[in-house]
Each structure stands twice: as structure tokens, then as C-alpha cells.
């Protein structure tokens, strides 16, 4: 449909999954009120989870999941070669996500524990950007569909997209939530990238930082206030490293 007499592009998109739960892909077909228009505004070329038509003639690639095996690296390189725009979809693709937690363990022992004597190949979990160039990162566990919709709208018009500069606290406050710190619980809201509409603090569990650091996060002060409230460093670190968005900042 034309808008102001301008005909939008219909970008040819592909969705690929790597190591992850496929929850972010699922979001692409969630939000049923608009999903038809959403899928209609693009040309779905390759989306294995929902479609058997498979082609490599795509322009925009959405990558879901962390990278944890050599065959994935190869697959990723091939996709990068084809894609004009490559988008990391979700915290796993952006940071490694929860998958990165395994990096703290001895892989030999881990393999032994899960598969016994049978050896299964695995590499330390990495974010997509650690392997290839990424054009845009959409963090979230899972990604926020309204935000993905907006990003796709911007893709369709070929205009830049700017993530919010505010942390989660802003959208939490907008909903009249009682700050979970006041209730004696921990929350990463002050240092986490906003834009998710703060479902976690609002839902009662505090923010776990799935969207990674906010613009110019003040981690030092955050640790200070968490210390003052007598949260153990162990607990704080478990939180901050949960989705690995703060990797390298701790």
C-alpha cells in the first residue's frame, strides 16, 4: 500500500536460527492483530520454522541464536555474503544470551555429564558480531514484537532506526510500578537498555538485563547502590551475566 504517494520497498527477508530457543522467531509470527500486515510488508524468502519455500535470494537476514559450532560459523559466513542487511535478532544473537553461561564450565566435563562417553562438538558460545559484521542488533529475550515491527517499517522505508537512549526504569515508572528495590529485590532497570516496556519489573521479577546495557550505563554507581542494599556480589553477578549483555563490562 502506498503511503503519501510513496511506494514502500518490499525487502526480501530471511530468518535463520542458530543456537537458541527460537522464541524470537516465534515473536515474528506473534502479535496476531498485525501479523498479516507484518508478513505482508516484506517478502518472506526463507523462514524454515514456518515455511517450506527456501531460497537464497534474500536481502535482509535475521539471525537468531548464538554461535556454538563450526558448521554454524560456515553457515553464518554464507549468509553474510548474501545479505545486504544482517540483523542480530534477540539477546542470543546480540550477546550470546544465556548460552554464554556454559562458557564458565569445563566443556569436557559438561559433555561427560550430559552425553556420557559420546563426544558432541561444541565451541564457546559467541555473539554473531564476534564472527561477522552485523548491521543492526535487536536485543531482548525474547525480542519485543512492537519494536521489531517498527524496525521493519524503517527497513521498508530505508530510514535509520534509533534505539531509545533511556534505561528500563523510564518505562517501568510510566506504568506506576512500585520499584522492586523498595520491596527489597534486585533490578537491573537503571543500567539496562529500555524499549521493552519493562515487562519484568512490572510483572514482579525485576529486570534481568536481557536487552544489554543502556546508552552510557553507570555500572559503577549501580554496583554501589546494590552493595548498599546488601545484595551479595554473587547475586549481582549472576544477574548481570545472565543474558551476557554486560559481558566485558564487569
Amino acid at each position: 500500500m502506498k503511503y503519501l504517494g510513496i511506494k514502500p520497498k518490499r525487502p526480501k527477508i530471511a530468518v535463520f536460527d542458530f543456537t537458541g530457543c527460537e522464541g524470537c522467531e516465534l515473536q515474528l509470527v506473534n502479535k496476531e492483530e498485525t501479523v498479516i500486515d507484518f508478513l505482508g510488508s516484506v517478502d518472506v524468502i526463507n523462514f524454515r520454522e514456518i515455511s517450506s519455500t527456501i531460497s537464497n535470494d534474500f536481502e535482509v537476514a535475521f539471525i537468531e541464536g548464538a554461535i556454538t559450532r563450526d558448521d554454524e560459523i560456515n553457515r553464518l559466513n554464507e549468509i553474510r555474503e548474501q545479505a545486504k542487511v544482517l540483523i542480530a535478532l534477540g539477546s542470543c544473537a546480540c550477546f550470546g544470551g544465556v548460552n554464554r553461561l556454559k562458557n564458565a564450565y569445563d566443556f569436557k566435563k559438561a559433555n561427560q555429564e550430559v552425553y556420557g562417553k559420546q563426544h558432541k562438538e561444541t565451541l564457546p558460545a559467541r555473539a554473531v558480531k564476534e564472527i561477522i559484521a552485523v548491521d543492526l542488533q535487536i536485543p531482548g529475550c525474547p525480542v519485543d514484537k512492537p519494536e521489531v515491527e517498527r524496525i521493519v517499517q524503517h527497513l521498508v522505508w530505508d530510514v535509520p532506526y534509533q534505539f531509545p537512549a533511556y534505561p528500563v526504569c523510564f518505562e517501568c515508572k510510566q506504568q506506576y510500578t512500585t520499584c522492586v528495590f523498595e520491596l527489597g529485590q534486585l533490578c537491573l532497570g537503571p543500567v539496562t537498555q529500555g524499549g521493552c516496556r519493562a515487562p519484568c519489573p512490572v510483572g514482579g521479577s525485576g529486570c534481568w538485563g536481557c536487552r544489554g546495557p543502556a546508552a552510557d550505563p553507570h555500572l559503577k554507581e549501580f554496583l554501589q547502590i546494590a552493595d548498599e542494599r546488601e545484595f551479595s556480589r554473587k547475586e549481582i553477578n549472576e544477574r548481570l551475566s545472565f543474558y551476557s549483555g554486560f559481558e566485558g563490562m564487569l
Partner: protein
Amino acid sequence: MLFKILSKEEFRNFIDFLLKDTEVIAPKQINVNADGKAIYQFLPVQNFEEIRLDYETTDYSAKTYFLPYKEDLSSCSFLGTIWDREIKYRIQPRAIVGLHACDINALLKLDKVLAGDRFPSPYYISRRKNTFIVGIDHDPCEGGFCQSVGADVVTHGFDLYLTDLGDRYFAAINSNRGFNALQQVKTREPTARDNNDYLEVRRRIASQFKPLEVHNLPNLMDIEFESKVWKKWADKCMSCGSCAMVCPTCYCYGVEERITMNNAKSAKIKQLYSCQFLDFATVAGGLNFRPDRETRLKYRYYHQHRGFVEAYEEPLCVGCYRCGRVCLADINPPDIIQDLQTEYQE
């Protein structure tokens, strides 16, 4: 101003009368904090029992009922190359019961900006005029410094204002609407004893405030523009914006537009913003006029205690201390102002 005496029993009838066909917003206890202290919020109530007029303060101010955090200013429907615009103002009458003096003063300040003669905001005015306000006196809240900024008493901006005299309320009436509403219940004229009791309560309240020196702030702000105090406090600021969200007077905002996936409808959305956010003053191309926390924090105080005074002869801050309470980093006006004064004296 007219005054009436209203028994507590009659006040209850009065609330019941309001509740009959008007949405009533009042302080409600919603939780207890980790230390066992009650947490209150201004929320719609269904019955008298839910209302807690003895509340000390609320986490959030009642500003959101006049300046919603998020509000659709207008919507567009597209028809080919052209479009139609629709604007709706909120007109459902409602009542807010239990506002303290500082919060009513805050509304008066907002009135100056948003209902004054330069570009009055119809969105604000329609909410303001359609809200019946019942204020109430109370003992100072912890940390509050409203007296220092002249916001502990209020003489207009409400329909009714109550002072608790134990078994009865001393009610100040400030509008025709308020007068009519009170006629729905039994009231009587105040006697000399009522007046005495009232003044006694007022005196008791007034005597409990800790003074904070603010009269020289507008000048001080200029003199201490380069002060180290700003950096000291700003170094703690996480730019989370919570202070502006709970503040009863912060009115800064941003506007953005959204369009539906099928390009058929769009909305122009206003959302209150905070001057502490990194991109508050960023323009296209990435130039940021206030890139660091120090200039942002300073600006907030500068606007409240100097700029606003320059424009309206009074500070914007009403001393409710909500920002100080909400700030996880414990950044708060009394401490900052005290620091500035101390530095100035040195």
C-alpha cells in the same frame, strides 16, 4: 473563601455521593516496602474504605492525571496521498481526593506553563477543568521541604480543602462547584472554637518543618554555575529519569509518531521525558548539547530554581521530596542545595 464544618460521618457520605457517578482518585495503600512501611499511590477507588487520607506521601505524584506519561495527541487516517486528522480531549469529569498542599501548588505551577496565555494546552486544560479537587492538610512528610519553597500552604487551585480537626473537618471552599457539592451533605458554619482549632492545627504543622535556605537560589545558581558540587552529585546519577517521572511539576516531553503496519492509521504520541536522559538535547547528526551527566543534572536544578523563577517569580520545585525518595543513588534537592550554600559561604 468560604469555610464549613463537616463531620467525619458526613465526609463519608460526601465521598459516597462523589462515587455515585464520578471517577474518584484517592490515596490507596498498595503494598508495604521492605522495612514494613506502607506504600501509597493515587489510584481510582471503588469505595470509601479504600481511601487512606492519613497517608504520609505517595511514591508518584498525581501529575499523571493531568499530564499522562503517555498520551495520543492526535491520530491520522490515510486516504491515498491525503489524510484526515482527529483530536480528542478528555472530558470525563473526575475527582481527586486527598491532595496535599504541595501537589495542589504543583498544579498551580503547571497551570502557569500549560494554561497560561502563551500557547495554552487544551489537553491539559480539559483535564484540569474536568477534575474536582479535594485537598487535605497533613503533618510534614519525611524529607519534605515544601515550607522553604512556599508550597506548604495553598489558597486556590482546588475545589475543597480539608483540615482534620479530630472528629470533624474544617473545609475551605474555593469554587462554585465545591460549594454545590458540599450542599449534598450536612455542614455547618464554623464557630470561634472551630476557627481556633483550625489555626492551632495549622500552627502545629507549620512549626514542624526544618528550614532550608533557598531564597538566594536564583543568584546562587548563576554564581555556582561552575561549582564542583554539580560534578560531585552528577557522578552518582544513573540517568534513569525516575526523578522526573515522580516529580509533580516536571513537564518536559517528547513527541513521536507511530504508524500501523498497514499504513492506514498513525498516531502522534506525547510522552513525558526526563532531562537526565542522554539524548534529551541531541539533534540530528549526533550533536548533543548536554552530553554529560553534570550539565544534565545542573540543568534540572537550574530550570527549577532559577529559570522558572525568572519567568514566573517562583521556583518550580514544591519541595515534596519525591525525587529524593525515588533516587536509588540518593541524589536529592536538600543535600544539593545545602552543598551549594556551604560552598558559597566558603
